[in-house]
């Protein structure tokens, strides 16, 4: 968080190149059943067990839309500050593939349900707005399995027909870091809204990445390549880096960049042309005659708008204002809805600023070490607040608090119980402390004389002795005060 100027450029021999990136994110809609059929969307079922006659495109089968998927798309659109279109149309995107049973994907082409919107990114060099071009609903395809048999491909249609939201950004992203921030922000917004679980391992969030390069200062876009179906942020970043370098090299060698679809090979860390798909790229979109135009009443949109939860940007503002956090702290604490919920629960019961410091320090480090989400934290928000309060009130010192924290993690006990049973309470009784300090001073007369003669460094030595004698429990502030007073006398 130290850099203050954007400086992601590819350096070629003939100059610096800017990388222009646009993303088409495919986010799986959170719903119980599929977009046009009543089969379950649950992940991990036995092959072909969540497939209806509609999902497998039997003759005469017809789609009926799931109202919740429509609402989820609207909610997401509202979360992206986007225009919700009262009139949208479902189209057929025609192509042949073994895991596409209908021979077409029902999608939205000319009239998507959501129009232009925007997403704000917090970058080290300031906040940056990324434009959203559109969001539309579409069906997912099934899964082709190529490695079960040397001569055959196996097809599982469990995923076939699950609702996806395709969120298309404008070509506003300029670096792998911005892509990282963008995906995380989108994911965060959708998780706040409850419209997509954002689980990248299970394929709930994937993206097609459009990359082009241009000389720094150029205003025209270069020829872009689309890298299909990348399923982790790390791979997106690697693919962009590779692809941008490849394009710069082509330009510098005076060669032409073909506008094409490419695939990112994660093993070789390179992008490759998918020419075989290129031939069939004529999707022959047309309005699906099995469906009617989707006309949304403004009341439905307004009602959904009213019921939206507070989203990260708003929440961040509030955290700064209400809790006195700095922008960085607020940003971290609103990044996930669960984190912000945890923080707010802690902040309600304890010192707000101290709670933020301890959460972002020890708590996050512990969760990170253990690979846990905050929802699985071994320390409840209530207990964590008690710990923060114990520090704040001077009941325990920061150093002791770290020990208490460790015990809390292991035992799940509340901090009060730990502090009491282990006698970890801070010594804050001035009389007791004075007695203890007098004892130390009388044992170390030589050092006291040296101190009084001007060797003030020795102050630390006395503090150390107090801590040693008290088993670390002496209240540091009080100890200082009393020591100073007695050493003067």
């Amino acid at each position: 968080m130290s850099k203050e100027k954007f400086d992601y450029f590819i350096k070629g021999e003939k100059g610096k190149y800017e990388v222009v990136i646009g993303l088409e994110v495919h986010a799986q809609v959170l719903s119980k059943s599929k977009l046009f059929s009543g089969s379950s969307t649950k992940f991990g079922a036995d092959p072909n067990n969540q497939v209806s006659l509609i999902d497998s495109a039997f003759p005469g089968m017809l789609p009926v839309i799931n109202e919740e998927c429509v609402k989820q798309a609207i909610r997401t659109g509202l979360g992206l500050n986007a225009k919700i279109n009262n009139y949208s149309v479902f189209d057929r995107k025609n192509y042949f593939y073994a895991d596409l049973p209908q021979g077409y994907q029902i999608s939205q082409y000319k009239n998507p349900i959501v129009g232009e919107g925007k997403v704000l990114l917090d970058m080290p060099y300031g906040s940056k707005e990324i434009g959203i071009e559109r969001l539309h609903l579409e069906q997912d395809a099934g899964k082709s399995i190529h490695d079960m048999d040397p001569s055959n491909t196996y097809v599982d249609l469990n995923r076939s027909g699950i609702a996806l939201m395709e969120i298309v950004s404008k070509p506003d992203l300029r670096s792998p870091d911005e892509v990282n921030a963008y995906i995380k922000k989108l994911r965060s917004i959708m998780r706040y809204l409850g419209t997509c679980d954002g689980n990248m391992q299970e394929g709930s969030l994937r993206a097609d990445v459009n990359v082009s390069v241009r000389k720094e200062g150029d205003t025209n876009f270069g020829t872009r390549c689309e890298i299909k179906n990348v399923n982790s942020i790390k791979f997106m970043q690697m693919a962009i880096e590779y692809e941008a370098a490849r394009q710069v090299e082509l330009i510098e060698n005076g060669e032409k960049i073909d506008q094409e679809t490419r695939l990112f090979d994660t093993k070789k860390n390179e992008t490759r042309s998918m020419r075989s798909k290129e031939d069939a790229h004529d999707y022959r979109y047309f309005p699906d005659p099995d469906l009617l135009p989707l006309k949304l009443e403004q009341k439905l949109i307004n009602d959904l708008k009213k019921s939206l939860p507070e989203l990260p940007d708003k929440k961040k503002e509030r955290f700064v204002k209400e809790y006195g956090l700095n922008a960085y702290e607020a940003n971290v604490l609103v990044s996930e809805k669960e984190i912000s919920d945890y923080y707010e629960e802690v902040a309600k019961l304890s010192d707000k600023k101290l709670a933020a410091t301890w959460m972002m320090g020890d708590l996050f480090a512990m969760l990170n070490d253990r690979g846990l989400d905050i929802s699985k934290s071994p320390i409840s928000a209530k207990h964590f607040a008690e710990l923060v309060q114990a520090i704040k009130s001077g009941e325990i010192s920061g150093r002791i608090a770290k020990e208490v924290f460790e015990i809390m993690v292991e035992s799940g006990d509340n901090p009060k119980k730990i502090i009491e049973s282990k006698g970890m309470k801070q010594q804050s009784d001035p009389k007791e402390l004075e007695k203890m300090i007098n004892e130390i001073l009388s044992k170390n007369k030589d050092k006291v004389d040296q101190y009084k003669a001007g060797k003030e460094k020795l102050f630390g030595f006395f503090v150390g002795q107090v801590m040693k004698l008290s088993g670390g429990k002496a209240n540091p502030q009080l100890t200082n005060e009393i020591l100073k007073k007695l050493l003067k006398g």
Partner: protein
Amino acid sequence: MADITNQSLNDIIENLKKKKVSSTDLTKAYIKNIESAKKLNAFVTTTFDQALDKAKQFDKKPNFDQLLPGIPLAVKDLFCTENIKTTAGSNILNNFIPSYESTVTKNLWDNGSFLLGKLNCDEFAMGSSNETSHYGNVINPVGDQLVPGGSSGGSSSALAADLTPATIGTDTGGSIRQPASFTGTVGLKPTYGLCSRWGIVAFASSLDQAGPMTKTIKDCAIMLESMSGFDEKDSTSINKKKEQYSKNLKDNIKGLKIGIPKEYRVDNMPKEIDELWEKGKKILKDLGAQLIDISLPHTKYALPTYYIVAPAEASSNLARYDGVRYGYRSKQGKDLIEMYEKTRSEGFGDEVKRRILIGTYVLSSGYYDAYYLKAQKVRQLIKKDFDDSFTKIDAILTPSTPSSAFKIGEKTNDPVSMYLNDIFTVPVNLAGLPALSLPAGVDKKGFPLGLQLIGKALDEQKILNIGYAFEKNCGFKNEIKKWWS
């Protein structure tokens, strides 16, 4: 008693009610007819054992509160029937056994009827003569060498030959009305959305409608009442109260305004068709209806529009027949793409392939605006023509077809002349309106000819009423000699 199978559905129901015949005997009589009519090739699959079981069950516990009590019915092989092979007239579905029942057939069974067999049709309902079926031509009982119309050719043939008391077809551009006209029977294409499309093998989703094919208007009303209704499984199904078409059938049409569109008098139209139309006008006028000249200026563009919209939708609807999950799969495919190409090449017939190619082309990059989008604009104009006219009239009277049944093979080498057969029927599909074809006379060869009544959306009752009055006063009698048995 006399041969029960040449009676109307309504009379058969009356006879069943009066115990003059049992459902079992009725079913046996149809089975006998079907077995002696193999030459007509109207059936792809028969379900006699199952039908007899159902008939016996009915006779044991008859329930005459239903609309179709104990009635055996054969249906077009485009309706998916649970555990009964459903081919859509195609090789690509030659072994396909659905695990589900279409909503329309389920409605029929729920009203007391049961399946007698599956009727031949043009492959994926693409045809006007039943010559594109993988399962062979169907013969029109009117004459040995005649086509029965299409695509519901098996349905019209079986009905006219007394192989089923009534039947159902599907109509995308005339596939119920044209075969009805060619066989001297009644055919109704309902308002788009009145009958559920769920479980019907799709041809062109925005045009397809299932409808009844019967011997009389009353039968037509009974069948429509049985098969129609809101279905939440079809997003294009209209949610409205069910109507009692047969109970509300009235033959008083005094004061109704009948539009006569000048654009339906096409160039080179046979004189007989014109005469038939004149006859129809006179009958309606004599019954007290008022004839009003109207104009539907974009009529001429309906067929070109149809031949963009229907193939475009079909090219996409038929993409699912890829040999992966059901149906025919070529043995030749080494890899996935080759498997697709061979499967679809071997599985589809020439007409279907032709239409898939047309549809693929008109949607493809660079051509979409010039063809598909243009057609959807013209479709808007065609719909508007009807909307404008229907502000001043109750129904429209036109001929059903530009000619009577033609000979097998006569038009197979000229797709456009085949397509022109649907010139009067197609506009209605593009506008989503109901239309009835009713037998009105014969040409000089003695082949039946039909007139078409077009109604406002959801105005089925009115065109049935007009048809009912017309039928009583027309004096048409379908004289079919059973030359095949």
